[in-house]
């Protein structure tokens, strides 16, 4: 039997320097007796020199856990920890065996330490030491952790309170942060800490005010803030009086619930602005459309969309592009074609020799229709009902812009423009005269190009799309200019 005497309980370095030669010499756990200084020695102890037989490497995670678990006050820890480490030498996957009794034990001990550590980070209460306002501020706290965790807890406080001096005293040891240096010292006593702090009154006031007497849940509080911590928490002295008064406060609320409106409030109050009105007959400009769209509740799509997305561009544009509906990004920004499909459209327009700034770009449906799926919104095609209802807005835009050429992007746009649902392929490649004098060029929606999985196919479709846009440009150039703007429509 080998005997190891530890002088500094909770000191990982000491335990490790004792354990390492034993492990290296292949001493099995049952042959090591771990004692704390002060305990009586064993007659069978044997501390003869050890011959290293192997080098010791351990999984980093195990070393981290051991570093924490050694702080546990259970006197069996040094020996049990040795057994786990011993086993881990020949079983690299030991920690994954969650149902193994040793691993289960280790996990439980580690959990206890991490919880204690978390509670220490939470429940230390500093009190300010005297000194003038100009000095570097100094604070001190008395804390009684369940385990010997001061060494583990101190770095947290150093990082958090770098700019002030502080000391934390515990029954085991003290940590001192002074002049940007962390040191550890002997055990402290409660008397070394001032018995009050001027800010504690404010803190207790806050604690009392933030408590809601109508939802008392004592068990929930005590589960997270066990009573053993209370005597070092200044706010805990208020728990009993707050609870005692809670029922009466709620009863009083109930009795005096209904009161007359504060007469002074009319002075500072604003009345709600009703924005439901949709001034259909007052639309004289594109700005009027944008304003009126905000109150649009013609179909239920407004319920979940962020905002309506009005068309954008020149009021005297000769070419109008009509898409389907705003997408995710368009919905957030309130502008048409600013997402991925918009980027593709911009590139295609440039290749066709068109400048978007000279066009009018809008959608058949003004609100985004989607299906929530986790953290994303999946685009959903608007149905014909929604397109037809929203056509009212598209007609207003057409009447105001009076384009010579309308390019429909995709099937929904075609429906919005014509009121019918012809296939794109049956309409494509030809020019169709529309009521009111404009010419229609039908093509696909840029998002269709984004969805094509086959690269070769996508390239062909992209060229066809650009050709459609180029046809619109050529046609606009060949038609007599009905607008006062000679360049509208051309880059």
């Amino acid at each position, binding site marked *: 039997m080998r005997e190891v005497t530890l002088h500094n309980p909770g000191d990982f370095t000491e335990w490790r320097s004792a354990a390492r030669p034993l492990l290296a010499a292949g001493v099995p756990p049952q042959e090591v007796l771990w004692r704390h200084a002060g305990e009586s020695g064993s007659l069978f102890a044997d501390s003869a020199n050890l011959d290293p037989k192997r080098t010791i490497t351990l999984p980093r995670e195990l070393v981290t856990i051991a570093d924490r678990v050694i702080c546990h006050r259970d006197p069996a820890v040094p020996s049990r920890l040795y057994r786990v480490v011993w086993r881990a030498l020949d079983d690299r996957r030991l920690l994954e065996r969650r149902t193994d009794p040793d691993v289960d034990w280790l996990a439980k001990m580690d959990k206890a330490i991490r919880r204690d550590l978390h509670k220490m980070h939470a429940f230390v209460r500093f009190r300010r030491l005297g000194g003038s306002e100009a000095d570097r501020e100094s604070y001190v706290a008395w804390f009684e952790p369940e385990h010997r965790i001061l060494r583990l807890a101190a770095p947290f406080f150093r990082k958090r309170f770098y700019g002030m001096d502080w000391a934390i005293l515990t029954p085991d040891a003290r940590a001192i942060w002074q002049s940007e240096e962390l040191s550890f010292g002997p055990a402290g006593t409660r008397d070394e800490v001032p018995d009050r702090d001027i800010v504690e009154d404010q803190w207790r006031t806050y604690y009392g005010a933030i408590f809601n007497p109508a939802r008392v849940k004592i068990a929930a509080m005590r589960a997270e803030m066990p009573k053993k911590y209370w005597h070092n928490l200044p706010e805990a002295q208020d728990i009993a009086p707050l609870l005692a008064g809670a029922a009466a406060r709620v009863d009083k609320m109930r009795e005096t619930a209904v009161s007359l409106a504060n007469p002074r409030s009319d002075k500072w109050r604003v009345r709600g602005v009703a924005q439901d009105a949709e001034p259909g007959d007052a639309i004289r400009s594109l700005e009027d459309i944008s304003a009126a769209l905000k109150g649009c509740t013609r179909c239920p799509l407004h319920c979940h969309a962020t905002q309506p997305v009005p068309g954008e561009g020149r009021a005297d544009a000769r070419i109008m592009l009509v898409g389907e509906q705003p997408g995710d990004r368009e919905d957030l920004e309130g502008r048409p074609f600013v997402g991925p499909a918009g980027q593709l459209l911009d590139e295609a327009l440039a290749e066709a020799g068109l400048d978007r700034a000279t066009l009018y770009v809008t959608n058949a449906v003004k609100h985004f229709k*989607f299906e929530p799926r986790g953290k994303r919104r999946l685009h959903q095609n608007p149905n014909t009902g929604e397109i037809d209802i929203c056509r009212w807005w598209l007609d207003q835009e057409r009447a105001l812009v009076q384009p010579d050429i309308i390019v429909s992007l995709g099937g929904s746009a075609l429906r919005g423009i014509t009121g019918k649902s012809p296939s794109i392929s049956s309409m494509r490649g030809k020019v169709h005269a529309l009521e009111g004098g404009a010419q229609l060029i039908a093509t696909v929606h840029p998002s269709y190009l984004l969805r094509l999985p086959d690269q070769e196919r996508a390239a062909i479709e992209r060229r066809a799309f650009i050709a459609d846009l180029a046809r619109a440009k050529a046609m606009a150039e060949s038609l007599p200019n009905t607008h006062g703007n000679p360049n509208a429509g051309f880059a």
Partner: protein
Amino acid sequence: MAYIGFMSEKPILEKLAVLADAAKYDASCASSGTIKRDSTGTKGIGSTGGMGICHSYAPDGRCISLLKILLTNFCIYDCRFCINRASSNVPRARFNPAEVVRLTLDFYKRNYIEGLFLSSGIIRSEDYTMEQLIEVARLLREEHRFQGYIHLKTIAGASPELIARAGLYADRLSTNVELPTEEGLKSFAPEKTSATIRKTMAGVRVGLDDAADARKGRLLRKAKPPRFAPAGQSTQMIVGADSARDNDILQSATSLYSGYRLRRVYYSAYSPIPDASSDLPPVRPPLMREHRLYQADWLLRFYGFAREEIMIGAQDGMLDLTIDPKLAWALQRRESFPVDINRAPREMLLRVPGLGTKAVERILSARRLGAVRIGDLAKLTASVKKVLPFVTTPDWRPGGLTDSANLRARFAPPPEQMSLAF
């Protein structure tokens, strides 16, 4: 700093009492989810990172992590469920920004809090109010090198430029929906519209997306792009003030999660307030309903459930108050059970009543190294009794238990305990 309040100055303790009391109906107190940061480099104070810390608990069982106060409880709005509505007779107070800064730092240095959660009644205008909130955050960050957590309320309707500035200083931004339906808002919060609220949230999401893009797009690793609300945005819905059903609430939540990348939706049981508006019956807050909504919310976000599936275990759009929503679903879908603990894919394990995400990870890890037996379950999950009817192991078959008629009764507490749960 010259500052003129529009009322006679109250002592700080009195203001604190009024403005903390006014803030307590906002359920959010999280200080988690932000980036790792500390004061080593700045030589000031403050640190954040990883999970938040609850520095105390009030006797209502709620965590106290942040100094949660209003800048002022004067408000030009008249939302009927709100203690601070214009027509309420509560005492009013107003902090100036320097006072909030002082309180935050004083509390922080004594390790009472993780940081500040600042909200406000609407005074003068949405933009003016937002500017005041931003000023407090700016003072903390720039003048005092404060590295702790800051949660700012984004005032719905404030201009996008102000939202963008708030994101530079705050860890988290939140815009409260308060009521899940447009009709609810219309009748209870006449000055608010869900369109304005959603637009404000959209502004925050654009800020988050742009910051993420900037981080990805930078050429040099060292070049630090300006950060934007690294702990994201959240919202709150009040439960039980209007007639919205759980289904409406969850529908609204899924829509908001998907649209605005919300980190959290908080559900806050409507709690009687002093000086309540006459049309709100002074009832006990529906705490169990609130709890079930949180459970359902977790199922949506971490367990792969769709809202429609959760509603399978509900009745008339209301979640079962007696048993948790996963169990309620499983009891309606018994044909999917029992599942083999040692073979079932992760997605299916997540659907077993009694198994949480951590337990599922432990099972997946353990079964790679050998079959998990019934005796092992206690080491992997805390709720073995709940799990048993729904799983098999080499040495356990639930037999008729899975389909037994009284399975629900096994888990439902006896009726007289119900009143205790409230």
